[in-house]
């Protein structure tokens, strides 16, 4: 046997067979064939072979190869991978190429084994990762749905509870009223907690978007601290504890830090709940802020027993690491704080204070883009008085006919009762079709419809009514939606369907009144709706818009002052999360209140933000937001000066901000 040429040796090493196409389906080996050719196709050395008869795959590919050889193009025609089995079941991964070589029509067939397995492993890993990713996304989706269902179910009874308390307040003796007020306050607190859970965990479930540090994710620490004190003051007062915001001076570089405002609120909330649990009656809890150059530190000082003396003090911020035998809930809150703060590049800790008690603090880096205008000077905040709901609602001068549609009987009856107590004429119906029938029959001024009803939901009702109005050329009825999940997306859908407002359940009756009655007030004959002449001062404008009804003006101002920070936060959140739909709906919702105040700059900024949201543009959104925020702060200061005693249970906000530092 002659020695193998280097040519043959290389081909054998590469497990490659080399054939020349001779026409008529015949192929001749150009070199010694590798062993797999014989195992698979029983082709001996030097034999001509009809490859199409040996392999169905090659039969297919050779038609393509012959086309290539007929009209020679540069390069080669490749078959892609295929796998064949020999008679013993052994698999051969193969790859063929048709080429022109030294004027010959050449077919190379290569056995891939090692390379094939490597690539298969690579693909397997990639596809496994893809499947895992898909599974995770589905899990997240399921959890979000579950979360919304839970929130919806938890929220639903709160509306009824709140309305019951409100109705009771006007009918019970003062000594009983204080217990009713406590119930009312606690139902408010529960609502805030439910909303907080929804917002915080929805964001968590959406992934690590909040872990991004930078300008896109920033929160104003002063605002958050102030909100926290205002929110918790009633609970502290109830326990005989004074809650104050420590005095501080304007921070030269502003007070924006890396973080997401709702979650910074929650961190303050957790620290304050912790302080509330451990502080004795008669003591003072102080919330403070310190400028640390590139970072800002917030702290909560209490006068309680200090940190636990045992080893549990080292585990305060670990999961279920509640200190010692202190009363309280499982240690999830502080763990959440630690996780969140560290995700934003900050730190958190606790220490005993020399003068007694403990200090819980957290530190966050300053946001890379500071607000051009820092917040105005704020002074010491005395503990706010408990929030007191109005004991009776002022009956309206002009009763409206309102149709209330809700399939939940208790919710419906409560809304009906509340509106009747207000002096309106109310028709309650149990579903969307009945709402449409009532709309035709009684020609109401207002429809209040639950968004989620069987057969015909609130959105469908709204669309149908707007369609009917359009066809008949009739005036627009006021359409108010109710929803257990009044998210930005829900609001967007509601507005698209033609609703004028969407109230999340549970809602303050005053908010419902405001939604129903404000358009009526704004369209009184003395003042046409719209923006007044620029020369008109704010007081004159409001007087004109409210028909010189001072009580109405105070009520509307109070409603606006209580409401705009929430909407402003929603806009800030939407901008930082690049939530286009949320931005559009939040900016749209905020604009609703501007006509009363001639807030041209705010109106323009909000409109720009709404447009940005609708067009999914975020360039310049942060700057636009700051313009809006600054103008609204200016408006707020003017309104507080004009209306020192607004009519609203939410007026505690006015009190806490009215003390300026010298």
């Amino acid at each position, binding site marked *: 046997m002659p020695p193998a040429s280097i040519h043959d040796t290389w081909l054998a090493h590469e497990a490659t067979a080399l054939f020349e196409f001779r026409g008529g389906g015949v192929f001749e080996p150009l070199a010694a064939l590798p062993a797999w050719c014989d195992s698979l196709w029983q082709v001996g050395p030097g034999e001509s072979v009809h490859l199409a008869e040996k*392999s*169905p*795959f090659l*039969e*297919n*590919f050779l*038609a*393509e190869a012959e086309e290539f050889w007929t009209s020679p193009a540069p390069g080669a025609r490749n078959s*892609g*991978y*295929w*796998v*064949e*089995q020999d008679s013993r079941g052994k698999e051969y*991964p193969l790859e063929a190429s048709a080429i022109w070589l030294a004027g010959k029509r050449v077919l190379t067939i290569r056995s891939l084994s090692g390379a*094939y397995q490597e*690539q*298969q492993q690579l*693909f*397997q890993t*990639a*596809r*496994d990762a*893809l*499947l895992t990713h*898909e599974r995770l996304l589905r899990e997240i989706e399921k959890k979000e749905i579950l979360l919304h269902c839970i929130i919806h179910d938890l929220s639903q009874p709160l509306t009824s509870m709140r309305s019951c308390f409100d109705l009771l307040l006007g009918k019970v003796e003062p000594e009983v009223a204080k217990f009713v007020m406590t119930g009312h306050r606690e139902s408010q607190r529960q609502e805030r907690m439910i909303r907080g859970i929804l917002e915080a965990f929805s964001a968590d479930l959406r992934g690590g978007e909040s872990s991004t540090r930078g300008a896109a994710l920033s929160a104003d620490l002063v605002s958050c601290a102030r909100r926290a004190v205002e929110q918790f003051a009633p609970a502290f007062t109830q326990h005989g504890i004074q809650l104050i915001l420590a005095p501080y001076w304007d921070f030269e570089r502003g007070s924006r830090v890396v973080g997401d405002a709702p979650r910074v609120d929650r961190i303050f909330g957790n620290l304050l709940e912790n302080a509330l649990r451990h502080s004795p009656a008669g003591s003072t809890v102080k919330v403070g802020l310190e400028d640390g150059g590139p970072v800002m530190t917030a702290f909560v000082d209490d006068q309680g027993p200090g940190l636990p003396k045992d080893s549990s003090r080292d585990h305060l911020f670990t999961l279920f690491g509640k200190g010692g035998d202190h009363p309280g809930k499982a240690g999830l809150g502080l763990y959440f704080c630690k996780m969140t703060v560290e995700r934003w590049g900050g730190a958190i800790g606790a220490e005993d204070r020399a003068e007694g008690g403990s200090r819980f603090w957290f530190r966050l880096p300053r946001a890379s883009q500071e607000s051009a205008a820092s917040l105005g000077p704020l002074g010491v905040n005395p503990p706010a008085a408990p929030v007191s709901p109005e004991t009776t609602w002022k009956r309206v001068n002009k009763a409206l006919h309102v149709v209330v549609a809700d399939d939940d009987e208790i919710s419906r009856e409560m809304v009906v009762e509340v509106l009747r107590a207000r002096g309106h004429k109310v028709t309650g119906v149990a579903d969307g079709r009945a709402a449409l029938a009532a709309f035709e029959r009684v020609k109401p001024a207002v429809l209040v419809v639950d968004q989620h009803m069987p057969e015909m939901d609130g959105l469908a009702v709204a669309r149908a009514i707007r369609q009917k109005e359009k066809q008949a050329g009739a005036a627009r009825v006021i359409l108010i939606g109710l929803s257990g999940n009044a998210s930005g997306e829900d609001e967007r859908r509601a507005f698209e369907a033609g609703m004028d407002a969407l109230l999340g359940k549970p809602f303050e009756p005053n908010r419902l009144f405001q939604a129903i009655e404000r358009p009526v007030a704004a369209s009184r004959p003395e003042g046409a709706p719209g923006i007044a002449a620029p020369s008109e001062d704010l007081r004159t404008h409001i007087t004109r818009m409210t028909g010189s009804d001072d009580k109405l003006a105070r009520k509307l101002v109070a409603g606006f002052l209580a409401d705009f920070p929430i909407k402003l936060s929603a806009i800030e959140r939407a901008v930082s999360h690049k939530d286009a739909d949320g931005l559009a709906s939040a900016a749209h919702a905020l604009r609703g209140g501007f006509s009363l105040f001639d807030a041209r700059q705010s109106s323009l900024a909000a409109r720009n933000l709404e447009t940005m949201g609708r067009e999914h543009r975020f360039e310049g959104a942060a700057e636009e937001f700051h313009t809006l925020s600054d103008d609204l702060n200016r408006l707020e200061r003017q309104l507080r000066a004009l209306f020192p005693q607004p009519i609203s249970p939410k007026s505690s906000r006015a009190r806490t901000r009215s003390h300026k530092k010298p």
Partner: protein
Amino acid sequence: MESIFDEQYHTTIGVKVDKKVVSVDREEVTLVLWDIHGEDVFQKMRMTYLRGMSGYLLVVDPTRRQTLEDALALEARVEESMGPIPWVLVLNKCDRIAEWEVDSERIPSSERSREAVIRTSAKTGEGVEEAFSRLTRAMLHSPC
């Protein structure tokens, strides 16, 4: 064929050629099977693989709705390229029906050439033979 109906998911690269003998109406038919990789972000199918094809099974994982949508899109391309040829839609994992994202009653019907929708289980073997039999019978009776 094992890789098509293997309980354990195995990725396919290119084509795996196999043979299977199917008994239809007391007649034995030898099928040459081409197990072609599914289309996804990693691989696109070469339409040249389909040359000479007499019929095909489209195997879907109903626990992942996207696989049905991908399969139906592929079927449309095949129809456009090859004309009407028999095919059977195979809904695998019928042993895990509680996890299905696909409602088999609401699968868009193809008025053209789909022979059947068969539920199979790689785990129990349920439906696998029926899928091949239905396709084989359709191919034997197809005018194409």
